[in-house]
C-alpha cells in the first residue's frame, strides 16, 4: 500500500485529531482535517477523499445526519469512531451505509487495517465470482467452497452466509444485513438463525483451517478476517 490516499477525518477533539494526523501521515496517507460536521461535508465535496473517518459526537450535527447528507452524492467509504461501545447509533449508521466502525480507544494498526479494507472494497468491483481468502476459496458461480484443495460441503444457507461475509472480508457486516441478504427482508429480526448457522459454518470452516476467521462483534454483527485478533470491540 504505497499509494497515497486522501483520508478525511471529522473529529472535534484536538488530541484525537493530532493522533489521527500522526498515524495517517506515518503510514503515508494524506490527512485532511475537519472539526465540525459542516466543515467535514464541505471538505468531502472539495477534496473527494478516499476514506472518511467520522466521530459520532460532533457539536453541530448527528452522525446519521452527516452520513445521509454525504451519501446523497458520495460513495466514499465511511469508518465510524465511537466512544461508547454500548451505543446503538453505530449499528444504525452501519445499516445506513457506513462501512465500518472503531471503538475508542483504538489501536493504530487496527485503524490502518480498517482503512486498507475500506479502500480495497471501494476499488474492486463487488461482482467478482471468485473470492480468495488465503487458503479459503469461494466460487460464487459454481457454489463451491475450498480450503486448499479440499472441497467443503456446505448447505445452501451456509454457503450464502459465507459468501456475504467473504464479499465483505475484513469489514464488519451487521446482523441485519446478513439476515436480509441470506434469509430475505422478512427475517431481519431472527438473530437466532445467525447464531445457529454461524456456529455450523465455523465448525465446517475453522476446523479444517485450524484458526479463527469469523469474528463476532457484540451487538453489531460478524466480520470475516484473516488477520489475527480482528475483533475490534474490546
Amino acid at each position, binding site marked *: 500500500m504505497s499509494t497515497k490516499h486522501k483520508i478525511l477525518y471529522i473529529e472535534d477533539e484536538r488530541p484525537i485529531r493530532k493522533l489521527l494526523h500522526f498515524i495517517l501521515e506515518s503510514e503515508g496517507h494524506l490527512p485532511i482535517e475537519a472539526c465540525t460536521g459542516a466543515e467535514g461535508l464541505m471538505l468531502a465535496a472539495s477534496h473527494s477523499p478516499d476514506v472518511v473517518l467520522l466521530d459520532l459526537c460532533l457539536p453541530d450535527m448527528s452522525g446519521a445526519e452527516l452520513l445521509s447528507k454525504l451519501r446523497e452524492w458520495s460513495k466514499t467509504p465511511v469508518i465510524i469512531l465511537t466512544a461508547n461501545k454500548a451505543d446503538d447509533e453505530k449499528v444504525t449508521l452501519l445499516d445506513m451505509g457506513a462501512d465500518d466502525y472503531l471503538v475508542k480507544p483504538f489501536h493504530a494498526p487496527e485503524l490502518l487495517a480498517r482503512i486498507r479494507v475500506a479502500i480495497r472494497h471501494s476499488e474492486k468491483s463487488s461482482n467478482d465470482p471468485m473470492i480468495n481468502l488465503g487458503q479459503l476459496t469461494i466460487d460464487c458461480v459454481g457454489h463451491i467452497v475450498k480450503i486448499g484443495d479440499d472441497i467443503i460441503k456446505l448447505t445452501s444457507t451456509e454457503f450464502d452466509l459465507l459468501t456475504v461475509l467473504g464479499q465483505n472480508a475484513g469489514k464488519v457486516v451487521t446482523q441485519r444485513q446478513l439476515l436480509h441478504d441470506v434469509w430475505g427482508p422478512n427475517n431481519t429480526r431472527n438473530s437466532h438463525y445467525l447464531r445457529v448457522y454461524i*456456529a455450523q459454518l465455523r*465448525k465446517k470452516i475453522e476446523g479444517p483451517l485450524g484458526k479463527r476467521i469469523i469474528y463476532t462483534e457484540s451487538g453489531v454483527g460478524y466480520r470475516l478476517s484473516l488477520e489475527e485478533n480482528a475483533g475490534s470491540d474490546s
Partner: protein
Amino acid sequence: MENRPNPDALLRSVRKTDNKKNQGRLKLFFGMAAGVGKTYAMLSEAHSKIKQGRNVQIGALETHGRSETMALVDGIPWITKARIDYRGTVMEEMDTDAIIRAHPDIILVDELAHTNVPGSKHPKRWQDVFDILSNGIDVYSTINVQHIESRKDDVEAITGVVIRETIPDSIIERADTIEVVDIHPQDLLTRMREGKVYLGDKADKAEKNFFKEDKLTALREILLRLSADKVDKELESLIVHEPKDAVWKTQDKLLVAVGHGLFSEKLIRATKQVAQRLKAPWMALYVDTGDNLSSEEQNILIRNLDLARELGAQVQTTSETDMVRGIDRVCRQYHITQLVIGRPGKHFWRDVIRGGNILERLNRLETSIAIHIVRNNSQIQFSVGEKLLQLIRRIDLPELLWAILWMIGVTLINTYLYHYLHLFPYRSVGMIFLLGVSFAGVLFSLRATVFIAIIISQIWNFFFIPPLFTFHIQSTDDIALCLSFLGVASITGALTSNIKRNQNLLRKQEEKTSTLYLIAKMIVEAETRESCLMAISSALSENFRGRVAIALKDKNQILEFFKRGEDWQFNQPKEWAVAQVAFETGKAAGLGTDTLPLTQSLFIPLTARGEVVGVIGYRPHDLHAALNISEREMLFTVCSQLGLYLQRELFQETFLETEQLKKAERLHQTLLNSVSHEIKTPLTAIAGIVDALHDQQKMNEETKIQMHQNLTESVQRLKIVVENILDMSRLNSGVLDLKKDWHDILDLTQTVITRLRPLVQSFPISIDIPTDFPLIFVDGRLFEQVLTNLLLNATQYSPSGTAIHISARADKKEWRYQVADEGPGIPLNQRELIFEKFYRMPNSKVGGTGLGLSIVKSIIELHHGKIEVIDSAKGANFQITLPMSDQPFTPKDLS
C-alpha cells in the same frame, strides 16, 4: 460576662428588623377624638414627602367639606375607588388591588377603623392596610383612641356612646411610627363651636355628648397612656441585651371560659391583657353542655372563639354536661395556672341541685389554680315585663304546638275512658295523665315538660276531680295527689331531658372520636400520600355534608390542586383565589371567616412545621345548613392532624433524601479510593514509558518490545476499569434495560477469551461446552461483561501458569455455567461477601476495583439467575445458574 447579650434575643431583634425590610412601614396619626386634625397632619406630612420626591397617593380620604383639608388634598393623586355592587346599590370602596398594582411609595388611608361594604375582599379596612403593607408599600393612616379594641370598654364607660368599629391592638404594636395629634380639649371645643369639626351625618345627641371637657380630658389621658405604652415596649425591645431574669420566671398559663354570651368578648379581652402582662400563653375554652343553641347564639360563640384565636389564644372546645367538671378536666390536662371566668348569673334551682354556683364549686376543687372573676358591668337589670317578653321570645313555637296537641290527645283519651266508658275512678285517670307526662319528658324539652305537667294537673283538676268543671278541690287527699303529681311530673321530665342531653353529648363525642379515629386509621393505613388524602377528603365530604378537596403545594411552592374525580375542585377562579389567600396568609379564609366571608367555601391552611403545605377547601351542600360550632372546631382539628401527618411525611422525605445522599457519598468515597488506585497504576506505567520515549537512543529492540507490551497491558487495564465504572453506574442508575437476544454461549466465551488474550495469555484455558448446547436468551453485551469479569477475577486470584476451566451444562429447566481456577480458593465465610460492592479479599493481589463481581451479580440478577461459589477440588469455582428459555424455531436446510 454577666452582661453579655443573650444571642437568642439579639437574633430575634435582628430578625424583627429583617422581616420588616420587605414590608411597608405603617405610620399612624393618633388622636383622642374626631376633629383634632389627624387628616390635616397626615396630608401635611404627605406634602413634605412629595417635596422629597416620594410618590405619594391617596387610597381613601374624606375631607368632609373642610376647606383647609381640601386645599391640602390638591396635588396628591388619587387611586380610583372600586365600585362594589351590594344588593343592587353600587357603593365605592378603597381599591386595595389597584393600590398594590400602582405601587406608590406611600399611600394615604384615612379612617383605619372603617368597615368595608359587604362583598369587599375584607370586612375591615385595617385588613386591606395589612395587605398593602405586606406588598412593601408604606401606609399613612389615622385612628381615634376609641377605636382601639382594648380601650373600647373604657371609652364606652366614659362617654356612654356605643362604639361599633374597632381595630385590634396588634395594629398599634405593628405600627412603625405613631404620631400623636394632640390638642387641648378646650381648643377642640372652640374649634367645634366654630363648626370646624365634622361628626358624621347622623351625629346624635349622645355623640355630641362626647365633646365635654371632662370626657375629652379622660380620652386624652387614654391616648397619651397608650402612646407611652408603645414607646415603653419599643424601648424594651431595643434594650434586650440587658438581662431581665424576672420576665421568664413565670410558667403561667391562662384559661378563659367562653360562652355564647356577648359578655364573653369582654372576658377574652381581659384575659388577653392579663396574659400579655404576664407574658404567658393562654387558652380559650368552650364547654359544650349539650344545650341547643339558637343560630344567633352560635354566631356569637363563633365570633367569640374567632376573636380569641385572633388575639393569640389556643382555642379548645370540650363536651361535658357539667361546666365545672369540663373546666376542671381541661385545666388539669393543660396545666393551667390561672382561670378567668365571668361572674356567674343567678340560677337558684340549678345551683341548689348541683351544690352551689360555678364559682363556689370551682373554689371547692382541689387545685392550686388562681381564679380571676370579671364582673359583668353591662348586665342589664330587666323589669318583670321585659323578663316575660324574653321568656316568650325563647318559646319554641313548633314544640309548643306539639305539646298542646299532646295534652289534647291525652285529655281526649281520658275523657273517653272516664266519661263514656266509666272504666275506672278519677284517681286512676290521674295515673294515665302521669304516664302521659312521663312520655312527654322523653319527647320534649325540660321547659315544655314542666309546662305540660302544670297544665295537665289543672286539666285533671278541672275536668275530672270533683267537683267537676271547677278548680276547686274538696278532699285533702286530692290536693296532696295533685301536688305530688306536679312534683313527679317535673322530676320525671327533668330526669329524662337530662338523660337526653347526656345522650346527645355522648353521640356528639362519639361522632367526633369516630371521625378522628377514622382519619387516624386512614393515615396509618394509607400506602401513598395521594391515596391517604383522597380517602380523607371523601370521608370528610360525607361527615360534614359538603364537598371537601385538598390542595398541596408542589416543588415550585405553587399551590397545586390535588386531583380527584369530582366535579367541584375549586374550579371557580374566585374560589381558587380565596384558596390562594389562605395559602399565602396561613389563615383560614372564605365562608364564616374575616377574609372574603361572602365566598361559598371555607379554606383552611394545612400547616406543617410552621410552613403552609397546602389548603383544605370545604363547601357545604346547603349554605344555610353550614357547620355548627362543634363541627367547625372539628374541621380545624382534622386540619391540624392532617398538618401533622404531612409534617411527618415531609420529615420522612427529607430524612430519606439525606440518607440516600449519605449513602451515595459513601459509595462515591469508596469508589474514589478503590478506583483512583486502579486508574493511577496503569497511568503511572504509561507516563513512565512516555518519558522514556524521549530518550530513544538508549533503547534497544528488546526494551522497545517490553515497553510496547507494558503499554498495551496498561491500556487494557485502564479500559477495563473504565468499563467497570460505566457499567456500575449504568446498573445503579436503574435506567438500564436488558436487550435480550438469542446467543451462542460458546461463541460468547470464545469472543471474550480472544479479546482478553493479552491478559490471560499465561493461563491455559479449557472450554467444556457441548456442541449441541441450546441457544441462550440474554443481553449479549452484558453477558460478555459477566464472562470478562469472571475470567479476570480468576487470573487475578490464582498464580500464572495455572489452568482456568470453563464449562456449561443445560437441562430442560435451567443451565449452569462454571468458571473455575486453581488458585487458593475462597473461604466459606467470604463466599457471600465477595459479591458486595468494593469488597476485596484480604491479602488479595494488587489490582481490581472490587467492582467486578458485584457487577456480575447485578447482571445475573437482572436475568433472574443466581451466582454462587461452589465447592471444588482446588481453587474457586463460580457457578451461574439461569433459567432456560424455549428454543426458537430455526429453519433447517439440507446440504
